[in-house]
């Protein structure tokens, strides 16, 4: 079972030591991605999605972040125990990440070609090839073509500020593609773009991972996009996974009260009126509620919900939910 998993996070706890005190952000995250699987990760802003995926690559800023417990297995190896050298190798050739805001993720004072070139150089080094300037150039052109950029030569000589938002997004995808042989993490790609371009970007991303057989973790607010792109979806709330299921199952039969509320909150073109929001707000991580962190906002909350966090219950084929409502089944 484990050998098939490319990512296997077990009971991960991460705190942030900030000025006001200690925020307990990740609260026992369990998260698995199989080889070649396309996984979506959804949840409200600030629920710890980005923290979870950043910890896979061990690129959380530490301090202020601190791993309090748990294991992160990447292709069977514990990331938290990896040597610096192995980490570098892993980042250069196995996993890479598309950051939330492509404008911030591109260095403003270096040419696009230069930035992609460096990634190619170290990727090839990790694969054991010493590669010439001409080859780097060639490969840069190639990867830019892959993300459907017209006129790659001109583009390579541009600075990020000279490009449109959509182009910057494609460039950051191109950068990630270079070193993402086995796993690509996409943190809300295209969120800052307008809807049509966002759609194009997501389609492109879907096609690229399909062709290469790469696993992908797609974080998104756009539930519709997630629906069309991924095989399996994890729903996250306030630092832990509350539900995981195959995409169709989840959308047709959401079980966790939070998931249900989340789906209800999405405005529908066909529906009438303004959708219901979820009453209350994400808890303060400085003093989160005990037990299930959703209990203050949950209409089904029982005393046991306030005492202990519910474990994952298996309900049906690969459908897991962390809620006592399903404990009896």
């Amino acid at each position, binding site marked *: 079972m484990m050998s098939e998993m490319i990512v296997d996070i077990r009971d991960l706890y991460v705190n942030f030591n900030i000025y006001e005190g200690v925020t307990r952000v990740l609260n026992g995250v369990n998260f698995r991605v199989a080889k070649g699987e396309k996984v979506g990760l959804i949840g409200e802003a600030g629920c710890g999605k980005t923290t979870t995926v950043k910890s896979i690559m061990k690129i959380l800023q530490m301090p202020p972040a601190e791993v309090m417990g748990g294991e992160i297995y990447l292709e069977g190896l514990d990331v938290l125990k990896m040597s610096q050298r192995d980490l570098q190798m892993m*980042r250069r050739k196995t996993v890479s990440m598309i950051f939330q805001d492509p404008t*911030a*993720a591109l260095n403003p004072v270096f040419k696009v070609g230069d930035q992609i070139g460096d990634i190619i150089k170290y990727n090839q080094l990790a694969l054991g090839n010493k590669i010439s300037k001409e080859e780097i150039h060639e490969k840069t052109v190639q990867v830019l073509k892959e993300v459907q950029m017209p006129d790659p030569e001109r583009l390579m000589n541009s600075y990020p500020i000279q490009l449109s938002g959509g182009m910057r997004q494609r460039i950051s995808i191109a950068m990630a593609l270079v070193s993402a042989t086995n796993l690509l993490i996409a943190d809300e790609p295209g969120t800052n773009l307008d809807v049509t371009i966002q759609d194009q970007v997501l389609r492109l991303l879907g096609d690229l991972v399909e062709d290469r057989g790469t696993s992908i973790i797609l974080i998104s607010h756009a539930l519709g996009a997630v629906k069309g792109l991924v095989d399996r979806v994890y729903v996250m709330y306030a630092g832990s996974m509350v539900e995981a299921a195959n995409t169709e199952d989840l959308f047709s039969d959401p079980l966790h009260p939070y998931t249900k509320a989340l789906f209800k909150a999405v405005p529908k073109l066909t529906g009438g009126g303004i959708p219901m929001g979820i009453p209350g707000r994400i808890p303060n991580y400085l003093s989160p509620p005990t037990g299930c962190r959703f209990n203050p906002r949950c209409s089904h909350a029982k005393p046991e919900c306030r005492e202990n966090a519910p474990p994952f219950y298996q309900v049906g084929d690969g459908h897991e939910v962390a809620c006592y409502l399903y404990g009896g089944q």
Partner: protein
Amino acid sequence: MNIKKYVAYRLISSFFVLFGLSLLIFSLSRLVPGDPARLALGPMAPQWAVDKLRAQLHLDEPVYIQYIYWVTNVFRGDLGQSLVTRRGVFNDIFEFFPATFELVIFSVILSTSLAIILGVTSGKYANSLWDNIVRVTSYVGIAIPSFVWAIMSVFIFGYLLRWFPTLGRLSSGVVMPTKVTGLLLVDSLIAGRLGVFRDAFYHMILPGTSLVISRLAQEARITRASVVENLHKDYIMAARSFGIPERTITLKYLLKPSLIPTVAIMGMDIAGSMGGSFIVETIFNWPGLGRYGMSAMLSNDINAIVGVVMLIGVFFAFMNILVDLITAYLDPRIMMKLRGG
């Protein structure tokens, strides 16, 4: 293409500003209480000689007529005659400028490079012991006026430790290299005289550091602040996530954006050093424009004062344009702005 337009625009506006400066400094110089001609000739000179000099300098005419005379002469390359040296101010400036130029450029290069090294190392390892040492030292450094550092360094490094000479550009007995550029470091190399180069270099250390001590500390702080700010940018984390070595990240992806604020204030630094050179050159008996200007000011040599101030204005304007272009070259965001408007 538009860069040329930008430079042209800057040159033209500098020209108008310098014109304004000449009006300001010229009229101030003619408001001096006392008679410059009498001051120049001394109290013993006969009245007719003083009158003759007054007429010769057009001092007996209204200020605006004097200004017209002055401007017409400026366009002929004539800044008038120094009342003290009795030579053309232009010739004097031409003679004294290289020494100051050499000192200022030396000290600005010294301070900028030191500041970058200090700022980057302390910013990269923020809150380490080294960082705290640099921070406290730079706080103190900012508060040291040039003349204070000059006096202290002469005492400590000149007299107590005897590391560096404290007067002039060369030790007595050392023959000046053949004048090519007027910059001793350059001329001595051209002449192939390394001993002279070394001597000239040693002579520059104390006045050079005095000129920039406070700005060096200021720049180190600015560099540190921008390193700390950029260290947490997404693009640094992204570079790390692609497995780019930490060395390359620091020396390439972190260094360049962090340098921009430091480079951008280099124009101000050069200006500040020019201002400081008046005092520092006087203390170290450095035969440059600053000492010349200072003695002109102390002896009410109005033509020389106006000439020196104008020259510094011109130099300052050019340096600012140059530094802005360098900054734009380093930072494509600024370049885009220039191209846009």
